[in-house]
Structure formats: C-alpha cells, structure tokens
C-alpha cells in the first residue's frame, strides 16, 4: 500500500508542478507562448498516444488509422459549433461518442481475425474517411468545404466556447485531459479488462483457452480508445482553428500516435508521456537547428529510434525510468503464503450420471490435402484419465485443437457433458469447463506468475481482488507460491509448466487436456511435475493427456488411445496397449528412427 500511495503522491506532485509551469515561465522568461505551445504539443501527443495505447499498447492491436478517429472528433465538434451553436465542450463528447461507435464498428469484425488485419483495416478506414471528406463539400446541407478545410471563427476569449486568448487556457485544458487519460489508463490497467488485454496481447490462443473472450475485450478497449482520440480531435480543432482532412486524418498523424507509445514503453501507463516528452522536443530542436538545410532529419531520428527501441528495449524507456525511482526495490509483489486450505479441484460427483463427459465421434480434419485426423472416435468417462499416444505428426495436438475449438472440424462431432459442441469458440468452451495446456508452454510473458493465473481466475471471479486470492491458492497448489511476483519470462521451463497447470486449474475445469507436460523438461524437474499431475488426478479431475514419456503415461492413465497418421489404431488399458506389437512397431519404430 505504501508503494501505491507513494505513486499517487508522485503523480499529484507532477500535476501540481505541471500546473505551475505557465506561472513559472511567465516569471522567468516573460510571456513566451512558444514555450507553452511546445509543452501543449508534448501533452497533446502524450494524450493521443495514451488514447492509442488503450487498444494498441494494452491490447497489442496496432491501429494505424487513429487519425481518422481524430478527424471525427475535430469535425463533429466544429460542425456542431459553427452550424448549430453547440459549445465545443458538448461537441467534444458528441464527437467522442460518434467515434466510439465508429471505432467499435470497424473493430468488431477485425477482432475475430488476427494480427495484421486490424492494422490494415484501420489504415483503409482512415484513408477512406480522408478521401471521402476531401470530396465532400457539404454534409446534410451543411458546408464542410471538402479539401479546402474548415475554419473555426475566432471568438476571442470565450472559455464556454472553448476559446482562449493566449496559450494558457489551452495549456490547462490539455493538462486536464492528459491527467484524465493517464488516470483512465491506470484504472484500465488494474481492471479485469486490463488483465485480459495483457493476456491477449501476449498470447491470444492461450487467453481464449482460459475463457477470456478476446473479441469482447478488444472491442471494449477500441471503443474507449476511439472515444478519447476523438476528444483529442476537438482539442486540436480548437487549438489550431483550422482543420483539413488532408492533415487531420493523415497517415503521418496515425504513425506518430504509434511511434510515441512504442518508444516510451508500449502497454505501460506512462509510456506515451515519456515518448512524447522525448520525440516532440526532438522534432522542435531539429527543425530549429537544421530545418533549413537538412530535410526530414527528425523523421530519420524517429524511425531509427523506433527500430532501436523495438530491437533493444522492447519495453521502451518506461522500465528504465522506473529503475531510476527504485533501483533497489525487491520483487514488487510479496509472495503469497501457501494456504492451508488446499483447493478442491473438481466436483467429483458427475451430474451426467454414467454418461461420458467427453465423446468424440467420427472426427475428421485435413490441412490442404494432408490428413490431420480421420474418423476418430473415443470417450472419456467422468473422473477417468485417458492418455493419447502416437508418433510425431500422428494428429494428437490436432485432436486437442478440435476439442477446444481452436480448429474447426471438417466432419464429426464433439459431445461434452451431454451437449453437442458446434460453433463455440475456445473461450466459450473454456467457460463450459474444458481447459488445456499447450505443448510449447505459452505463459503471458509480460505478466507475473500470479497475474498469469489471475487471468484464468478472472472470468469466474466476482472481483479482481477475489481473482487474486484465488490465483494465489492455485499457485500454491502448483508449488509456485514463492515465485508469485516474478515476471513469467523469468521462469524456468519446469516452472512454466507448473504455471500452465495452475492457470488451467484456475479456470475450474471439468475436463483438463494436458499436452506433453513433461516434454522439454529436464530430468531434475520431472519427478516434481509427475507428482503434481498425480496430485491433480488424485483430486478426481477428468484428464485427457498427450504424453510422449510412456512411463509417465502408463502410470497416470486408466486407458490409452493410440493414434497413427490421424487414425485410432488401438485403445485399451495401458499395459495391454504398450505391449501390443502393432503399437510398438508404429510408436517405438518412429521414435527410434527419429533419433
């Protein structure tokens, strides 16, 4: 708590300091509007970058069309002001709401897709809006002057109309907006949404497998981001007094909104501020020094810094600045004490009577001609542990992907708890009670161990605090309590495996799919992991296990299913299966050949 109050204290101090700047400059160097103007630009770009950061940084969805949203804000408030006499203060909110709707509308379809699509769509959106506005001379009968730009009448000092004489008024408005957006960022970061976004940014599949609804989280972040970006647009229009689509909605602007938070520390709360504090002055200084002789030097510096930061300091300068504040501070979050009340892993009594918990029937999937899985059928009874074995490429992980919905089947059915699964997405299936781990561990590397498990607990928890307590318990169960505050990228492979198990368990699954838990783990950590899996088994949870290590799987499973080239070739009790000559031939033969 002391850390929190110290941060708040520091923040308040900075705000007061910033508020005093105009007074101080007046005393020191007289009326110097240029100085204030530069500071306004710094804060303005920090503000925009922070707004962009809500979706781009926190959620890892890089919009390169935020200038379009800026334009919506600028034009909405300006048109309302000039044609309807609506104060820009209200127009600012109207523009924000309109942009929120538009942002949501362009975001929603993209967020079901991955990666670069969103970036491309946002560029297309901004360009369409720019060209469209350039071609439009009047909108609903109101002149907007197309490419010639829209001039706001100068009304002198009318604070109610968002107009001030001199720069001071704008300075304080911008300072207020900046404080608001940074506070919003701070709140989002510690909220449920913040954890979801961080998880999605690091690994969307893994997040979905834990029951996080990725599209919904991204959509919410986009709506927030759009709203605040448009609010910035209104400020811009009022400050400059002249808006043109060519500039206000330009690709240049969009790119600037990306560069600054990346430099400052993408996904951090204050990163956008640091980015703007460095880059805006660089732009000003290079222009003043070399503007007349060397062309575009500041853009070369921007680009080079962007590359350097991405390559060398992917976290930006934020961690470095934090290091200045507390160089010697210990691992930030205190380790959770192991709790006496060991968690109850599963409801032992199955509601479905004697029926199978999982039934797979005629399941098939091919990849562009190559068979992944063909006509596969098997069942898993409640409380049972079933192992799937087979050589590399036998289709084991594909089966998991089909059960969890990460892949769509070409044919066949998956029944879970008496219900036929159709188009449910991985996150929906997770909420039904199917959890999984991944063959190659996928911790959210930007989050601490505790936070990793919190993401899994959050969809079912009433509050962030409850999820935190819950997560602490699961970490303790997995034997990682002492590592709770460590960033996941600092964990060993064995610890990562444990973390994944804790995460999967925190979703309170009815069926847990374990994909090669012992794979890639060194001999020393192996016994501990096996003990952990046996502990889970002892709790009565239903397990479906892919395992290469035959000794481990025969000890763990009640029954084995053997796959070969996507087809089931044998099924039965472990000892009977592993001694079957056909299985030995396929399985061991392949293993020997491999290596």
């Amino acid at each position, binding site marked *: 708590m002391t850390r929190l109050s110290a941060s708040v204290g520091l923040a308040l101090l900075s705000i007061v300091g910033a508020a005093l700047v105009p007074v101080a400059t007046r005393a020191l160097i007289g009326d110097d509007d240029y100085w204030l103007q530069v500071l306004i630009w710094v804060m303005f770009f920090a503000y925009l970058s922070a707004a962009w950061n809500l979706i781009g940084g926190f959620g*890892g969805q*890089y919009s*390169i069309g935020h200038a379009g949203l800026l334009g919506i804000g600028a034009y909405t408030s300006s048109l309302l002001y000039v044609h309807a006499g609506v104060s820009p203060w209200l127009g600012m909110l109207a523009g924000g709401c309109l942009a929120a709707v538009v942002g949501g509308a*362009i975001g929603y*379809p*993209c967020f079901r*897709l*991955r*990666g*670069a*699509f969103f*970036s*491309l*769509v946002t*560029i*297309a*959106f901004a*360009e*369409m809006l720019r*060209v*469209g506005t*350039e*071609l439009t001379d009047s909108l609903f009968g109101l002149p907007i002057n197309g490419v010639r730009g829209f001039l706001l009448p100068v009304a002198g000092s009318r604070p109610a109309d968002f107009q001030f004489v001199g720069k001071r008024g704008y300075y304080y408005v911008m300072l207020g907006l900046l404080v608001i957006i940074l506070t919003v960022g701070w709140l989002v970061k510690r909220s449920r949404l913040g954890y979801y976004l961080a998880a999605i940014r*690091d*690994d969307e599949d893994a997040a979905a497998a834990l029951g996080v609804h990725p599209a919904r989280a991204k959509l919410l972040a986009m709506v927030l981001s759009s709203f605040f970006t448009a609010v910035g647009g209104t400020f811009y229009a009022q400050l400059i007094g002249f808006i043109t689509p060519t500039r206000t909605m330009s*690709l240049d602007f969009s*790119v600037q909104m*990306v*560069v600054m938070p*990346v430099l400052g520390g993408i996904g951090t709360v204050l990163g956008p501020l640091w980015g703007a504090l460095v880059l805006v002055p660089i732009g000003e200084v290079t222009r003043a020094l070399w503007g007349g002789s*060397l*062309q*575009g*030097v500041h*853009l*070369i510096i*921007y*680009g*080079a*810094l*962007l*590359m350097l930061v*991405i*390559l060398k300091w*992917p976290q930006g300068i934020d961690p470095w600045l934090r290091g200045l504040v507390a160089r010697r501070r210990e691992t930030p979050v205190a380790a959770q004490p192991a709790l006496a009340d060991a968690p109850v892993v599963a409801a032992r009594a199955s509601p479905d009577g004697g029926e199978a918990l999982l039934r797979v029937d005629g399941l098939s999937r091919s*990849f*562009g001609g190559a068979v992944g899985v063909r006509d596969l059928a098997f069942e898993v009874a409640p409380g049972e542990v079933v192992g799937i074995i087979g050589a*590399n490429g036998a289709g084991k992980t594909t089966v998991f992907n089909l059960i969890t919905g990460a*892949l769509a089947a070409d044919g066949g059915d998956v029944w879970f708890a008496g219900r036929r699964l159709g188009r449910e997405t991985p996150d929906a299936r997770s909420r039904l009670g199917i959890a999984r781990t991944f063959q*190659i561990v*996928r911790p959210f590397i930007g989050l601490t161990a505790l936070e990793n498990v919190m993401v899994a607990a959050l969809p079912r928890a009433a509050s962030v605090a409850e999820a935190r307590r819950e997560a602490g318990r699961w970490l303790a169960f997995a034997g990682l309590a002492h590592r709770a505050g460590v960033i996941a990228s600092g964990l060993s492979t064995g610890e990562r495996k444990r973390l994944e198990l804790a995460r999967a368990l925190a979703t309170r699954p009815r069926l847990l799919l374990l994909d090669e838990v012992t794979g890639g783990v060194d001999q020393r950590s192996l016994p501990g992991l096996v003990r952990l899996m046996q502990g889970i088994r002892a709790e009565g949870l239903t397990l479906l296990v892919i395992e290469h290590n035959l000794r481990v799987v025969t000890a763990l499973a009640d029954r084995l299913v053997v796959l070969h080239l996507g087809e089931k070739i044998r099924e039965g009790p472990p000892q009977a299966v592993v001694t079957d000559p056909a299985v030995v031939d396929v399985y061991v033969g392949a293993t020997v050949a491999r290596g």
Partner: protein
Amino acid sequence: MRGLAQAVTSGLLIGAVYGLIALGLNIVFGTMRVVNFAQGTLLMAGMFMTYWLWELGGVHPYISPLVTAPLLFGLGFAVQHLFVSPLLARERAREPMSVLLLTLGLALVLENVALLFFSADFKTVTTDVSMQTFKIAGLIVSVPRLVGLGAMVATSLVLYLFFMHTDLGRAVRATGQDREVARLMGINDFRIYGVAYGLSAAMMGIAAAVLVPFFYIHPGVGTSFLLKAFVIVVLGGLGSMPGAALGGLLVGVIEGAVALWVQAAVAQIVLFAVFVAILFVRPAGLLGVERR
C-alpha cells in the same frame, strides 16, 4: 463503350504493376505473416537505383534488374538478418506484430534518407519505349505498360516454378505453413526468412524497372503503391501468389472503371470499401486458403 474498353485495358496494364508489388509483399506475408511497411520504400530504392544506372551508366531500365535485383536481394536479406531475425527469435510462438512496427520505422528512415540525398526533385527517365503505343481493335495499348504486364506474368510463373519445384521453394512454403513443424523437419527457418525477404525486395527491382520508363521518381513515390498493394494482398488472399497477381489486375480494372464512370478520387474509396468488405466477408481473400 469504347471508353470503357479503353479504361479497362489501361486498368489491366497498370494493375499488372500493382500485382508485381503485391507479389513482393505477399512473399513476406506468406512466410513470416508479417506486413512489411517498408515495401514501398524498397520500391522507391529500386526506382532510384534504376534511375542512376540510366543517368550515369546509360543502362536501359529493362536491363537494370540484372544489377538492382541482386542488390535489393542483398538489402532485403541484410534487413531480415540484422533487424527482423532477432525479433522473430524473441517472439517465436506468436504473430510477430512488433515486426510491423519495425518495418514502419525502417520505412521512415529510408524515405527520409532518400530525401536527404536525392532531394525532393521529381525525376523521369525517357527511353525509346517510354511514349510508344500501338492499337489493337481501336484500343490504345501503351508499350511500357504492356511490358509491365509481361513482366508480371513472367515473374509469377518463375515464382510458381520456384515455390512448387525447387527444394528451397518448398522449404519456403513449408515454413509459411508452420514454422515450428518446418524447424522440426530440419529447415533453418531464419535462412528461409532471409531468402523470402530478399526475394521480395528483389522483386521491387523488377517493379522499378517496369515503372521507371513511364512514371516519375521521388522519395515519396512508394506510399500510394504500398496502400494499393495492401488492398490487393488482402483481396487476393494473404500469402496467395495467384491471388496477388489476379488481385492486382482486378484492382486496376476497378480503379479504371470507377474513375471513368464516376471520378478517380471515388475509385480510391471504392477500393478501400472492397478491401474492408472482403476482410469481413471472406478474410482469407478470394484465392486464399484458410490457415491454421
């Protein structure tokens, strides 16, 4: 009707050049799932190389790819090796989105370095073919653009043969399908990425050679082609080579027809609208295959 036929013809011809650029963009996307924002500036670099070869050495633009393509291949390979590889190594299992930002930075640097060295002057190259036209059935066909179409078709064919019938090409495709599996199969994925990046850059040498005789050269010339290439890549299917080629032609035709019927500026909006519609309705693109 004659007007429309003419607009469509011209659209097809310029569309071929768009397709050439989109092919380059798509090689990188197909293998690395990375959108390369520096593609436009690589084209610009290719155009300046072609220009200087002509200006200083009298080398005809159509011969220049012999020099520029290997140079650009080296540049692409180096960029991949120096900048992209470390990122991919860090972000093994994920969509390497930070590469997108990296290429954005690279584009900023390259474009403005060009501005610094070559100034904002517009340059053109007038060769023997620059102004030549001939008529087929009353339709005017510009010779340098027809060469562009030919170059696009030839390049597509060579690429197809490369990807389908050479070991290296197959390795590139396998890496594009699944990086992990490819690595398990013993393919050095970073070398493959280098090849893909280099190839994609080298293709900008060909595109530059085709463009230079009838277009102008300027540090900012890449941007408008880049945006079109994005549209085409999505339209044809991310990672699909035939999609990029045909998508280019389609975009050229749409552009030509809309510019004739309505106006050229509206064509831009229509293109982006088509782009967004495709993304929403069929994200894999017209000829793309849904991927894992």
